[in-house]
């Protein structure tokens, strides 16, 4: 299902539809996370990605009300087959690599463990990974500034609440 949606993302001509199918991808990934005993991540996936970011994207699409890609003189036609070929090569290589993973000694399956739980993540986040966490906040702060700077015309509103959304 994830693959299907992903293909749809690429295939769709109208960005709105591909956005929606992207959301599909996110959801299915969230399910996989749950299977992989990472409920917290799954939740965040749904909230942040499928929620915030995609809403933002859709918002922008609406704002700029772009319909499907205008039919201008299509340039760089050759890129489409090229991309497909390259993708094929990549798949091949990945397969080539993964074979080795297959051959490596079998690992015990994902028996239920507590690492995925919110509590354990939180503790790690504030002890071992304190610094990255702080840095993340800086990152977001800067993103706000940057977005404001770029998107504002005079003192536009939506640029500011864009900032708030993240």
């Amino acid at each position, binding site marked *: 299902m994830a693959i299907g949606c992903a293909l749809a993302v690429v295939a769709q001509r109208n960005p709105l539809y591909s956005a929606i199918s992207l959301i599909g991808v996110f959801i299915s990934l969230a399910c996989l996370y749950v299977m992989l005993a990472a409920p917290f991540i799954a939740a965040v996936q749904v909230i942040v990605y499928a929620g915030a970011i995609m809403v933002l994207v859709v918002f922008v699409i609406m704002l700029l009300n772009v319909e499907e890609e205008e039919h201008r003189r299509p340039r760089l036609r050759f890129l489409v087959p090229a991309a497909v070929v390259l993708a094929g090569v990549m798949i091949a290589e990945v397969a080539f690599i993964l074979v*080795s993973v297959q051959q490596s*000694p079998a690992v015990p399956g994902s028996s239920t463990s507590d690492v995925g739980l919110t509590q354990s993540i939180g503790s790690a986040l504030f002890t*071992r990974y304190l610094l*990255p966490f702080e840095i993340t906040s800086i990152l977001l*702060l*800067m993103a706000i*500034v*940057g977005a404001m*700077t770029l998107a504002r015309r005079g003192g536009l509103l939506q640029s500011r609440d864009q900032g708030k959304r993240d």
Partner: protein
Amino acid sequence: MMPIINWSLIAPEVIVCAAAVIVMLIDAFSRPAQRWITGGVSLAGLVIAAVACVCLWANGTPAADAFNGMIVLDELRLGFTLIFLLVSALTLLLSTVWAENEQLPAGEFHSLLLFATVGMMLMASGNDLVIVFLGLEILSIATYVLAGFRRTDIRSNESSLKYFILGSFSSAFLLYGIALVYGATSIAELGPGGEASRIVPGTTNIAEIASRISEAQYPALLYAGAAMMLVGFGFKIATAPFHIWTPDVYEGAPTPVTAFMAAGPKAAGFASFMRVFIFGLPFVVSASSASAGSLHQTWVSTLAVMAILTMTLGNVVAIVQNNVKRMLAYSSIAHAGYALVGFVAAGAATDPAKRDAAITAVMFYLLTYAVMNIGAFAVVQIIARSGDRRTSIEDYSGIGFQSPVLAFSLSLFMLSLLGMPLTAGFIGKIMVFGAAIDQGYYVLVVIGVLNTAVSAYYYLRLVIVMFFGERTTAWQAPRIPASVAVTLVLTVLGVLYLGVFPGRVINAFQTKIESQLFTQTQTQK
């Protein structure tokens, strides 16, 4: 368990970060009349950070693994940090007046610049792929914005767009690489039954990676991860074929930003690139798996090839450029190639002392490049006037004796980029080439010097246009703002100082990290 916090360890980063925030606030709550304050504050922040950095250096505590070994304290980090601070300071000096002229929000520009600096510093100091990745992202996002800072200018938009798309594209590769490495470095401890009893999870800590590559569980994944990280970093430092974004972005971005991008992020890229590959994937003599040794050998030889490609491509294409900024962009690609030569030497070196020397060479080279490059762009900015209008070679024709200060300093920078003796470029070149020769990469070096000869053609072309031709159109000498003048003086003096008496700086950069890193790896064996 409690977090091991050691603020002093990250003092410089914290200071710059604080400065950025303060600048932001001032900018938000100050009347436009006091815009200059932001510049002052950020400059002060940078200076204080530099002081802190020097203090850290002075009481050179051995690499304390505070924050669970996410931050290192070594000459590599500190040296590069100083370079970044210098670059940002010079860029600030360049940009203040420029921002005013362009009616751009100086405050935001400064704060973004400072954030970018933080990002670079993190890249240099991070001993964990997490930190490196975050630093890289901070830097990238900041520079995306900076590149597009002249919002109304189509070229600026386009350059920031291209930079954004390609940048995030390649950082996705980097991330994938990190993920694969993380997975690959897990160790399966085999129980009596021969089946894996339990698994030591993978790591993203560079030192630990180094200690584990010999018995990594999925060597193939390790290789793939290394390759992908190579893509990510290669993009940052603009090596062929990942240089492709550079000319467009440099040309489109506002000149001070271009100066910054050519000097700072490139150096930052090298910093983390070297840390990850030289210390993360070192040459390990281990009976357990031959693959480790060959991994090292693989990436070194790959880099050597990339270096050749990069130098040649940069120089050859630069010959046919007519836009000065674009020409300098290609020349910066070429210089990345020269620096890579040193990097290759550092990677190939198995003897810690020689590796130190090579790393020092690269650091020094990037320092010199930063200085002369910013100087050159300063002149370009002055001559280009507002809106980067006059950047084609023709605009320089015959100005040699009309405004001699600009012309001669630009010629000095050109000669330094060319690597003429008595300039910084010369010392930098002989250091990296020397390191390579020391490792026996004669072919690489010969190609390098031949490239230098080629580069003479386009560097001199600018000098020729300025001095040997007569100007046809009218030319009124532009007035040089004080801050830019300061930049010029600093860079000119820097080029000469580094060219004639580089001894002290080089000594300061002498890196002695690896010795103790090696012991670390030994102990963990």
